[in-house]
């Protein structure tokens, strides 16, 4: 495990320099990464077909001017984050290196509160009951088994089966029995004549 950590530590020294703040003589190299993608899709729409109240407003508007932060603010935030990191480093050194018995003592002193913190205030559990379970169960029971399988798929399968059943029934008319065909022709002719007579009688 040591070697990967060493590699990451070395890389973290290098990586930090890429986005070094302007107040320290650096600049952000990544924030304009996607800009050219939008530039391809804007010019012709904006310049050639531009009309007042056009459906697609010029995309450039969304970009806005580059946010300018003052030197002091930048240094302040840098200072805060460096301080937070150092604080963590010092605390870790105290708890796990200088006085390893201290964490247990603190845990005892805090009692129930310690367990709540240990379990991240039970946010995960709460989240699971409130969101995860309803979404997963709802998706499975209502959307997948309910809508997808029982409504959409069942309708399609039934209509395919229905077509087959109707054909299965109708094919018995094709019996090859000439007398039965003659019978159907006679019955059909009788029905047509009856209809015409009835229509004529009205």
């Amino acid at each position: 495990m040591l070697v990967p950590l060493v590699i990451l530590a070395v890389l973290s020294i290098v990586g930090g320099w890429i986005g070094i703040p302007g107040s320290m003589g650096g600049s952000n190299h990544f924030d304009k990464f996607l800009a050219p993608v939008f530039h391809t899709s804007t010019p012709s729409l904006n310049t050639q077909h531009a009309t007042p109240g056009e459906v697609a407003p010029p995309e450039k508007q969304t970009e806005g001017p580059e946010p300018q932060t003052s030197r002091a603010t930048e240094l302040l935030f840098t200072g805060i984050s460096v301080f937070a990191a150092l604080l963590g480093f010092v605390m870790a050194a105290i708890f796990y290196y200088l006085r390893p018995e201290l964490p247990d003592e603190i845990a005892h002193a805090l009692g129930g509160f310690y367990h709540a913190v240990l379990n991240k205030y039970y946010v995960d559990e709460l989240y699971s009951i409130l969101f995860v379970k309803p979404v997963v169960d709802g998706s499975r029971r209502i959307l997948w088994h309910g809508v997808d399988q029982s409504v959409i798929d069942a309708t399609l399968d039934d209509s395919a089966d229905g077509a087959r059943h109707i054909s299965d029934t109708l094919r018995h008319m094709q019996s090859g029995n000439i007398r039965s065909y003659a019978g159907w022709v006679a019955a059909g002719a009788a029905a047509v004549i009856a209809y015409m007579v009835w229509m004529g009688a009205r």
Partner: protein
Amino acid sequence: MTGEGLSSIILTLVTFIPLAGAALLLFVPNRERDIRVFSLVISLLAFVLSVHLPVHLQRAQAGFQYEVNVPWIPTPNIHYHMGVDGISMWLLVLTTFLTPLCVLISWKSIHERVKEFFILLLILETALIGVFVSLDLFLFYFFWEATLIPMALLIGMFGHGRRVYAAVKFFLYTMIASAFMLAAILWLYAKTGSFDFTTIQNLARTGNIEGFTLAAPWLFVGFFIAFAVKVPLFPFHTWLPDAHVEAPTAGVLLKMGTYGMLRFNLGLFPDQSRANAGWISVLALIGIIYGALVALVQPNMKKLIAYSSISHLGFVVLGIFSFTPAGLDGATFVMLAHGVSTGALFMLAGILYERRHTYEISEFGGLATPMPVYAALFLFIVLSSLGLPLLNGFIGEFLVLSGAFRARALYGILGATGVIWSACYLLWMYQRVFFGKVTHAVNQELPDLDLRERITLWPTAAAALVMGVAPLVWLNAIDPAVQSALAPFTQMASKLVGK
């Protein structure tokens, strides 16, 4: 000079080389290895030739390039008319890029009726390319239906479990839907005497087709249904999970639907597209969210990927019907990105299937220990599929959402939730399959990727990365095509304002 000579026949070559390969394959002796190598060579040849297209494309120029237009059948007036713009060109290259990988990934998993498999795969490639390059409605319909036959046979012959059910379902679904498109095409031919896309488009735009305004709503729906089933758009999607679980390789098929919407629904019926955009966008949003939620609870890895496709293709439809350049650029980019990432996901799932003969997520767990390289590549593709910045999924979805947001803020907001859902189902699946302790003893000894599998997967991973960091290579060619597709819409808008 050879470049120019090649340009005039390049589309014909790329389209029919796979078919010619399939025909030659009939005469290759029935030795499995020879058949595989031959198919690989043919599909690679098609890919190498297709690279000619983006290299020599006039990027600044809108309209179709590499055109061929010769009379084919005098009565009815059918032309052999092919050509590509930036959109269809990249879809073509996607097809030729994925086919050799399909050949490689099926190297070992197919060991029965090997020759039939590769013949069908090559025929499918020709038909798919044909769909993207056809500019004659009859030719287009011919290729469109031609994809059905090899695809249905592939599902039915080489699927698993309920493969015949899946094949018949796939066939009926898409065939019935295509009949509506055929009716619409025939109506257009009856009124214009031409199957030619550009001719009909010009006649329609200048209002020179008799009865067009009355018929247009029906024609629009006729085309739309055929494409919506193929995409597949909710509620026409239930063939996909069945078909994709059974299909040994699933590739570019779905993009036929979204490409069709872009080219024909928007191209021929701009007014109707505008009028129907509302409910279509709603269906697309339902597809995005519903597909993701159902994907979340799938116990079967391949079904999960299939439902995730429904979600991703919802983005494409949403982008197309936003009628903004960003939306259409993004839609096209999502098509390409989804082809690469989902193609890779299917291959990855297939690799696991080869080893364990199951796709059930519960059968796995802790696979990162026995298969570290596989796990790393899988994670990379999962991240690209869920739209991590710097990988290909992000660019397209971001553009689509910004386009959708511009068309209607609510669409953008709802669509954006789809990104979150895709992270949920993909990462949860990944966690259950790869993290933790090995839960089934049989998985302990699973071999990691061999050389052939690495060679198959590396190109997709590389493509996912390159598309993510240098999207302009693709968008430079897509954008002019998108602008010309949108020209009637901006004119409509100025007409509205001009009144």
